[in-house]
């Protein structure tokens, strides 16, 4: 069946461009028209590049997987010659002199980068309300948040102004917005995708992530971008995901075992999210998978551990923004005041809050009580998740406890905002791959999502499970698109 170009899968676009049946200019124009129609309502982008950033002299990949595919990328990934703000006033006007490795690899695979997307400042937040350049809106209800921090990338793919998008995760910043916008969102294994050129927030957890509308498109992007990068000392050795060897057919989940931590599905879980979980469990069984119960530590321990470790690392990483080498500079009479006034003027409230918390957790007299204890908790949490995965191929539980919340609803309560990431943080602490998949809609038309978590480097299992759900529940090409407000 023929459909508008902006509704096509990345796979179809790539194959038709590669065969000469489709012109890249036509693909780009179709997606730009969608962006122009939606942007006044959703504010997905901080920078749009007319005609897109095209491959420019990069050595092409042996088998190009993304020829002509329009990709949106989060504005904390460096793009040579194109502004990169991290959603922060402190980096306003910064133009990186180099490309992130994932950007280079997108170009080598023939992708077209259509723009840089909005985010919570320095990826710190769960709604994009912490962006220094305005809040993005959820296309399924523009009075609600799209999730965050990679909210702009989610909106771009959900509305069809990009076929796929890159975000980044430190504590759920791809999976949570994916669940709020009817998308798949992958947080790969720590080290699976290069962090070179990803502006650092918490280096022991940061990881580039992938938004897609289907399992096949997500796996295609992962295959194009993965593989060892000598420029990132934490990059995993080993080859890229082999896209052609991946079985995403109807039998993709046959024989797999999925563990469900029932205790997580209790108090505080929205009824529609719980229903999404039930539907997915039933669909997996119908697809030939086995569902069994597992136990996990309470995820409140994940949140507590995360907000000590991530803030400690952030307080160190963000020390580089001091008004000397790039970005904003406040007037000052001496160098100490230069640092203090620049950072006061350039950072938003949430970034300051996290830098202060992290500084406190690392300071003399408090290090053992906070940072040291959190590192011990991290070990316990990783062992707990790996123990739950013994005898299972993946774990299954909701991505977020609720569907998208109203803009402003949690803006004045940092702890309430942090708790919207309660189910996603475990995978980041443990370095495991996790994939949020669509799990239907609420009665009010808001998407909900559930996520799979697997052992390290087993993203193939995640996409197989997601593909099996597509065969059982809904064809991603017949997705429920958001309706543009009049």
């Amino acid at each position, binding site marked *: 069946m023929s459909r508008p170009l902006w509704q096509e899968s990345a796979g179809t676009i790539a194959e038709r461009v590669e065969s000469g049946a489709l012109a890249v200019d036509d693909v780009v124009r179709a997606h730009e028209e969608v962006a122009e129609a939606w942007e006044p309502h959703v504010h997905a982008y901080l920078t749009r590049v007319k005609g897109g950033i095209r491959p420019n002299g990069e050595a092409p990949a042996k088998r190009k997987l993304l020829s002509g595919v329009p990709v949106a990328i989060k504005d904390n990934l460096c793009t040579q010659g194109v502004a990169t703000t991290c959603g922060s006033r402190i980096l306003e006007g910064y133009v990186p002199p180099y490309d992130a490795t994932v950007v280079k690899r997108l170009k080598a695979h023939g992708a077209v980068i259509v723009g840089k997307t909005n985010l919570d400042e320095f990826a710190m937040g769960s709604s994009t309300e912490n962006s220094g350049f305005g809040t993005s809106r959820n296309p399924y209800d523009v009075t609600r948040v799209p999730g965050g921090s990679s909210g702009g990338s989610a909106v771009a793919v959900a509305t069809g102004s990009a076929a796929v998008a890159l975000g980044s995760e430190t504590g759920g910043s791809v999976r949570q917005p994916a669940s709020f916008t009817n998308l798949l969102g992958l947080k790969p294994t720590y080290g699976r995708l290069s962090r070179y050129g990803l502006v650092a927030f918490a280096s022991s957890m940061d990881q580039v992530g992938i938004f897609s509308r289907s399992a096949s498109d997500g796996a295609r992007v992962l295959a194009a971008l993965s593989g060892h990068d000598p420029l990132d000392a934490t990059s995993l050795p080993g080859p890229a995901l082999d896209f052609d060897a991946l079985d995403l057919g109807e039998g993709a989940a046959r024989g797999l075992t999925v563990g469900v931590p029932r205790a997580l599905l209790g108090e505080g879980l929205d009824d529609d999210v719980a229903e999404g979980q039930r539907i997915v469990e039933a669909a997996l069984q119908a697809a030939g998978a086995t569902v069994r119960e597992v136990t996990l530590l309470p995820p409140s321990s994940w949140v507590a551990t995360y907000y000590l470790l991530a803030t400690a690392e952030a307080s160190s990483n963000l020390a580089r923004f001091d008004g*000397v080498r*790039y970005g904003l500079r406040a007037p000052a009479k001496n160098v100490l005041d230069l640092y*203090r006034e620049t950072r006061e003027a350039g950072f938003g409230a949430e970034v300051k809050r996290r830098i202060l918390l992290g500084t406190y957790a690392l*300071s003399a007299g408090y290090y053992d009580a906070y940072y040291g204890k959190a590192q*011990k908790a991290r070990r316990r949490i*990783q062992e707990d998740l790996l123990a739950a995965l013994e005898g299972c191929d993946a774990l299954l539980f909701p991505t977020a406890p609720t569907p998208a919340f109203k803009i402003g609803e949690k803006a004045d309560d940092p702890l309430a905002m942090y708790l919207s990431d309660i189910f996603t943080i475990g995978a980041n*602490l443990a370095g495991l791959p996790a994939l949020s998949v669509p799990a239907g809609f609420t009665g009010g038309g808001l998407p909900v999502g559930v996520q799979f978590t697997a052992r390290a480097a087993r993203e193939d299992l995640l996409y197989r499970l997601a593909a099996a759900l597509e065969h059982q529940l809904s064809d991603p090409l017949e997705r429920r698109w958001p309706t543009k407000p009049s």
Partner: protein
Amino acid sequence: MATIDVRHVALLARIALSEAESERMGKELAAILDYVKTLDALGLEDETPLSHVHDTFAPPRPDTPDPASCLPRAVVLAQAPLADDTSFLVPPVVDTR
């Protein structure tokens, strides 16, 4: 509830917080630190800290100079708010007034 000397922490963090911000941050950080106490229930005294999630990483690349992969000085200095031909420029490090 925990109390934090926000002004001292802000000095360590090199942020010139306003009075109003200091007061508000103090309350918010105390609420977060109270929540963090949930970790006490895990009994972590004998646990080994974890700082890297994987046991092994790729071997380090050779420690040899690679001038071709370095950015030219002029390109780097062009991003600075204030620079001359060779250096970033800053106000006095030692205040001599």
